[in-house]
């Protein structure tokens, strides 16, 4: 026992020493020599402070973010501690409930952000951030970050979902031109089908999110057929989910995607979509087994290595046309930056994220789209990004946010996705729409 007691004493002493040494010490970065800190002077000096950022972007996307704000961090002395997590949507709730709240979070869904705003967890945007938001983004965009009239965040990333990817060579060889109206699109579809190739291909398997490419399709068509106002009413549940206009939009999508003559090019019957990973959905476009793949701008990253993107390269994209040549409905998505704390350094960082300077700096580093009016499309890294920015800045564009991201999560990330998968598997439009309507949470 004597030995035990001595050991215990020794360990206790060791502990005290180690704990004392292990106390956190101030972080912060130092400006490098010869760095121009002029543009960052307005954010002030915050030496020794840390801002924690929590987001879903990992790997290369995360690196590009960190490279972008490296100068800001060095000049202001703020240590920006970034953490990317593929399970962001589920984990953010645990982090906040568990008292491990980040200072700033990048929300990929406005609905999720709204939940924390309503719960009183998020801090309203400062006057400076609000002014930058008003200057940088359209009312549509800022509206998605506003809850009960209070602005909580700013759009950080934008993406355009209404793209149709195609092979320019395939179109050229068959004398097809890029369709500008819905009727022309159906005309191209029929011509390709008549030549023995299934015109459309898609993959909707995406783990727990399986089905989302289908809900995007339905939203896109509803936005075109019924217009933005009906679309907004549908998303906010002022009209029921199974409104006749929604049924009509779903049936229109069904006439393409559930049609074994038109889909699933390269992958067999239309039903096969549920087994094909969304990342592989468009691959048959390259081999000529499929003519068109409707998918967002970010699909650019999923083409096999070495695929070149451009108007006269391997693949390119056109805007899913509206009913006529003049209408330009664009369905898209985005990421919003919002803050859980209002310390001066957090305010400064949030302000920096809201500037066009940040968006431009990020665009110059690699593929990235911002809806900020102050960015120059010429700075975009890829032709599709350039096209996206041009569309987003075009005053004629009617931008609408991906509806499933705005609906209550149990519908938008639950029953709507699942229902769409059942629907592509052969279930009828009405039963699916009715069951989604029934699942809508009561207020």
């Amino acid at each position, binding site marked *: *026992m004597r030995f*035990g*007691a001595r050991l*215990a*004493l020794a*360990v*206790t002493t*060791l*502990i005290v020493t*180690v*704990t004392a040494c*292990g106390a*956190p010490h101030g972080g912060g970065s130092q400006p490098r020599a010869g760095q121009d800190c002029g543009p960052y002077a307005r954010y002030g000096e915050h030496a020794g402070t840390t801002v924690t950022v929590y987001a879903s972007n990992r*790997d290369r996307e995360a690196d590009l973010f960190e490279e972008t704000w490296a100068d800001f961090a060095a000049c202001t002395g703020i240590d920006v501690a970034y953490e990317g997590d593929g399970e962001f*949507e*589920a984990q953010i*709730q*645990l982090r906040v409930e568990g008292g491990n709240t980040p200072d700033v979070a990048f929300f990929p869904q406005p609905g999720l952000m709204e*939940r924390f705003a309503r*719960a009183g967890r998020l801090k309203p945007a400062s006057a400076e951030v609000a002014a930058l938001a008003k200057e940088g983004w359209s009312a549509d965009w800022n509206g998605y970050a506003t809850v009960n009239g209070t602005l909580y965040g700013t759009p950080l990333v934008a993406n355009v979902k209404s793209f149709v990817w195609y092979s320019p060579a395939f179109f050229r060889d068959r004398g097809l031109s890029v369709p500008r109206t819905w009727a022309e699109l159906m005309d191209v579809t029929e011509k390709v089908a008549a030549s023995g190739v299934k015109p459309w291909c898609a993959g909707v398997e995406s*783990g*727990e*999110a*399986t*089905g989302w490419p289908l809900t995007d399709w339905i939203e896109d068509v509803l936005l075109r057929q019924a217009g933005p106002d009906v679309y907004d009413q549908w998303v906010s549940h002022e009209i029921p989910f199974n409104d006749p206009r929604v049924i009509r939009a779903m049936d229109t999508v069904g006439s393409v995607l559930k049609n074994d003559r038109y889909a699933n090019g*390269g*992958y*067999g019957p239309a*039903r*096969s979509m*549920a*087994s*094909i990973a969304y990342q592989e959905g468009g691959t048959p476009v390259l081999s000529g087994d499929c003519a068109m793949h409707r998918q967002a701008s970010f699909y650019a990253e999923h083409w096999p290595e070495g695929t070149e993107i451009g108007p006269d390269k391997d693949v390119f994209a056109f805007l899913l046309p509206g009913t006529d040549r003049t209408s330009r409905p664009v369905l898209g998505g985005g990421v919003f930056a919002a803050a859980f704390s209002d310390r001066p350094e957090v305010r400064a960082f949030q302000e920096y994220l809201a500037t066009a300077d940040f968006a431009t700096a990020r665009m110059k580093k690699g593929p990235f789209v911002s809806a900020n009016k102050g960015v120059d499309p010429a700075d975009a890294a890829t032709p599709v990004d350039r096209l996206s920015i041009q569309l987003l800045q075009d005053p004629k564009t009617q931008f609408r946010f991906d509806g499933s991201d705005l609906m*209550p*999560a*149990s519908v938008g*990330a*639950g*029953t709507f996705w*699942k229902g769409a*998968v059942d629907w592509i*598997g052969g279930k009828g439009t009405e039963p699916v729409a009715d*069951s989604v309507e029934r*699942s809508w*949470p009561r207020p």
Partner: protein
Amino acid sequence: MSFDAVAQQPKLQHLLQGVVAFAAVVCLILLALHRGPARRRGAAFLLLAPALLLLTAGLVLPGLRTLLLSFMDREGDARVGLDNYVWLFTDPEALIALRNTLAWVVLVPLLVTAVGLLYAAAVVRSRFRALALSLVLLPMAISFVGAGLVWKFVYAYRPAEADQIGLLNQLVVTFGGTPRQWLVESPWNVLFLVVAMVWTQAGFAAVLLAGAIGAVPGEITEAARLDGASPRQIFWRITVPLIRPTLLVVVLAEVIGTFKAFDIVRTMTAGQFDTGVIAHEMYDQAFRYGETGRGAALAVLLFALVTPVVAYRIRAQRSAG
């Protein structure tokens, strides 16, 4: 990605502090006990205190809170009475999760025990007993997530004209069939998930049962043989009744484990295509949909279903010992 010790320093420090704090508590208890011949009851309490504290903070309090939350709305603010439980037994999706859990709880223990028993009986007298048991135990060394991914590939679908990447569809194509979407077609897809679970668990059953069969006294089987019993009669009338306690342990362990099945569903289908089970639906509701009340109600239901089995198992163990 490489492990950057410098960037991970804060986490390493946390880890170190945790380990150190644990060691400190143990040391303090040892020091206190060392003080002298304390009364035995006091010493017992001191030794039990950390465990009791951890149990209260980590199990009892969260359990009570979950029970409370199951009567609240999605934000956990307002009382809604039994609404969450009504939802649990009326919502089509929740009912599918209940149906699937029932199928899992019936099928997995049954299949695991049957496969394990037959395998054990087949190899127990063989020269390759050790090798054969190690082989069937191998899947247990793989995590459920790993097993789920392996089986997801086994069931992978590619169109008939393309090269198959899934083992099962390759077999089907080899024998002239057309590839099928095994994980998509309900309700059979539930069975394909169950197969993956059985694959991971059969080894556990086989090893335990082989041990029990090996322990059956040779005199009894020999006597039976002399009396003219056929091998089949010996197996069913002598071996199985004698290893009944072990069989019970295996079945009950599997029932408890299967109720909580989550990983395999999550990795293979994420609850899509009508394959959800209670544990997975609970996660979806509470963490993906923000429906805290419904998630809590599912957790309470799961707890209520598992508790009798656990209680029965403890009692069975006591009476056996």
